[in-house]
């Protein structure tokens, strides 16, 4: 697993900030490799951005098409386009989105907060609720509560995301009218302060729950398993022998250690969640990065898609660094590797 792999070589006196810098530096070749691989991959796709714009227009002339192609630089040979792209990337310039007629970085930064909000919210909810349910289940192994928790969690895990989402819309937005059907805010309301936060929270509720329910099962089951694992460890037996109460053992000794696989899972899931949000963002018209990526593929907006994949990798790698830091915090015996 990821967390363990990077903690292989122990180095005693290594400051945390240096560790982060070193990890970031190590990631740069990964970013470049991702950019080049994606570029080549996307160049294999039939059709390009000029085809899309001309096609959407419903009619075009050869001159119109040629003008589009030269404007987008698509008349250049592929290697020149790649060299140009990498050159710009090294200057931290993500380029221009032709489909959106806007700078890629600006476009992504505009959409990223919505996705991060959804992602962190959903992961947070799934993590906390999953941990709680997992602890509960582990305290009643094979009992009625344990079975109930695993059945409910599994049911949510097994239901396709879009069905959950559309079901929620029908019940809570259309029939009950409690929540808005989609979007990030009430359009045109221009709320500020607390009113704005409440507005966003209302819009966030359904997509967040939809996404969280899916991941809930994983965390609940993982927590239950790792709690059981830790309960079997020697030091717990020792604690028990010392006459400590089960509740105290659970909180003091087991919980903290049982959290470690959970944290690892959290790091692994960031990428999955960024992608999984495509469906949820589609259903709830959530103006996030997943939907943007989908549209970028469909319109061959190469710069934009490459930019999104790159930013996603940045988010994933950053999340993993955080996970490693959390590891060190959870278990002081672990030192951060170079």
């Amino acid at each position, binding site marked *: 697993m990821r967390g363990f792999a990077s903690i292989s070589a122990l180095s005693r006196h290594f400051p945390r900030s240096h560790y982060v810098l070193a990890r970031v530096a190590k990631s740069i070749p990964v970013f470049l490799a991702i950019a080049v691989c994606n570029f080549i991959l996307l160049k294999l*796709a*039939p*059709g*390009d*951005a000029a*085809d*899309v*714009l*001309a*096609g*959407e*227009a*419903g*009619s*075009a*002339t*050869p*001159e*119109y*098409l040629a*003008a589009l192609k030269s*404007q987008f630089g698509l008349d250049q040979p592929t290697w020149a386009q790649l060299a140009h792209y990498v050159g710009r990337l090294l200057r931290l310039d993500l380029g221009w989105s*032709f*489909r*959106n*007629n*806007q700078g890629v970085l600006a*476009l992504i930064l*505009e*959409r990223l907060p919505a996705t991060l909000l959804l992602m962190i919210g959903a992961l947070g909810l799934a993590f906390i609720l999953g941990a709680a349910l997992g602890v509960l289940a582990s305290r009643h192994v094979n009992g009625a509560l344990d079975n109930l928790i695993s059945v409910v969690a599994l049911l949510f895990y097994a239901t396709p995301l879009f069905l959950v989402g*559309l079901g929620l*819309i*029908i019940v809570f*937005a*259309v029939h009950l*009218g409690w929540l*808005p*059907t*989609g*979007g*990030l*805010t*009430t*359009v*045109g*309301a*221009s709320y500020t302060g607390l009113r704005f936060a409440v507005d966003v929270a209302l819009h966030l509720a359904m997509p967040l729950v939809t996404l969280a329910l899916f991941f809930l099962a994983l965390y609940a089951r993982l927590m239950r398993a790792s709690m059981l694992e830790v309960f079997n460890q020697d030091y717990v037996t020792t604690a028990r022998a010392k006459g400590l109460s089960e509740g105290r053992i659970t909180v003091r000794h087991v919980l903290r250690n049982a959290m470690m696989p959970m944290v690892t899972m959290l790091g692994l899931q960031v990428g999955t969640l960024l992608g999984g949000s495509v469906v949820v963002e*589609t*259903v*709830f*018209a959530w*103006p*996030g990065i997943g*939907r*943007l990526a989908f*549209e970028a*593929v*469909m*319109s*061959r907006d190469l710069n934009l898609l490459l930019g999104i994949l790159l930013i996603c990798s940045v988010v994933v790698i950053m999340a993993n660094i955080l996970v490693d830091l959390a590891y060190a915090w959870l278990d002081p015996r672990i030192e951060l590797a170079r």
Partner: protein
Amino acid sequence: MPRSLTRRFLVGAAVVAGLGLALPASAQDAPIRGGTLTALLHPEPPYLLSAVDPTLQMAVVTTKMYEGLLSYDLDMKPRPLLAESWKVAPDGLSYVFKLRQGVKWHDGRPFTADDVAFSLGVWKARHARGRQSYARVTGVETPDPHTVILRLSEPAPQMATVFSSYESPIIPKHVFGTGDLLSNPAASAPVGTGPFRFKEWKRGDNLILERNPDYWDTGKPYLDRVVFRFIADASSRAAALEAGEAQIGALTPVPLSEMARLTANPNLVATTSGYDYMAPVLLLQLNVRNKPLSDRKVRQAIAYAINRDTLTKTVWFGYGKPATGPIPSVVKAWYTTDGVPAYPHDPKKAEALLDEAGYKRGPDGKRFKMQTDPFPGGAEFTRTAEFIKQQLGRVGIEVELRTSDFPSYVRNIFGEYNFESTPMYNGAFPDPSAGLQRIYWSKAAQKGVPFVNATGYADPAMDHHFEDAQTQNDPKKRWQDFADMQRQAMTDLPVIPLMEMRFVTLANRRVVNHTITADGLIGTNFANVYLATPNPAAPK
């Protein structure tokens, strides 16, 4: 007799009437001021400059801000907009427009003849259809700030229908006059003359327009704001209309399968008017380059084998009408069935034709295999392909579906001619020179250019009908050209017209006057739209 558009266009100069005359009977009450109209739109346009890009969805937004010289009412009669009157010379070689005075751009600068001349240059050079429409315009004169004269090398009768806000929007010269059009900030934040001004655009979410207080038609518009919301999922769009979060959606905003349920909702009204300008027709285009589709008998057999009535009722839920030819019946000026071969559903005849062509059923009951690429424009097109697969399967043609996304589709069909058949649609437009010439004329074929002749069909007689019609100033002769064209198109069948499509505008009952032109929400500027009761969705 042909009801010539050109003639109507000529007399149009006498009718100097405001758009207000075209109000439907339901709007007799005094309009209510204020409120926000929220409209659904998908897909989100890349930028907002219809002067170069005729995408329908883009125009739904831009025509509220940019206006054309004229608008065309529900009967396709031209009405004044930025031009107060106009005249076409009897020889068809010059057009004179008298412009409305006192019109201001949203930035306060006056609107003049220079802007029109500049815009015409843009349409002619950059607009995907404008190049063809204005090809014969050789000179533009602006004798005074409120007069524009177009000089033509040859008559171009199709020009009678192209001066709308959708087809030929006027853009400000002082904003777009220098530099590249699309990298101009105004390409995404319009500065127009229309009743609404651009306010803000949150990409992926919404776009807000606000009332232009200095609009030339004093007292209008009635609405304070128009908001466009971009919702990618069709079921979610339906939910937004039902929940009252949005009040209107153009271009069939919800799946047709949901229409029965939604139209039963007392708050919602559906209309199929306002799309006659586009006149969309569902077609099955066939690649006639290779066997067996190169054989006319095979193509006729396919036409006989497909039950268009069932297609219309089942796949399109009745939102359409079986097509009788390439020109749909809504294009009243040119539509005819006189002498045009018809292909009623007749599988036996289809089988006989296929036998005759030498494609007999093999031991497995199959004659040959045919690939079909449904247009990536929604589930209805995929279901059309599935329907065709079933129907042709019954006469022994095995159909295989290939679905692709938009760029792949464009590249396969129009870039590489790598296809056998494709159910797709084409706007016939009010004038066949604009809408149909591109798919039947052999010289319209341009490898790589989307939505022009991709079938490989080339026929000198067909070419002649179109070539004569595009500069034919005599309406009678022109009508004959198009009648002959329709007969030949239905004999040769490089393209099988399946169904006249009926796009739907779905609106809340409170929204009044949303469809008052032939191009509906795509071309109407919303100056006359109001909400019959206060809009609860508006912020308090």
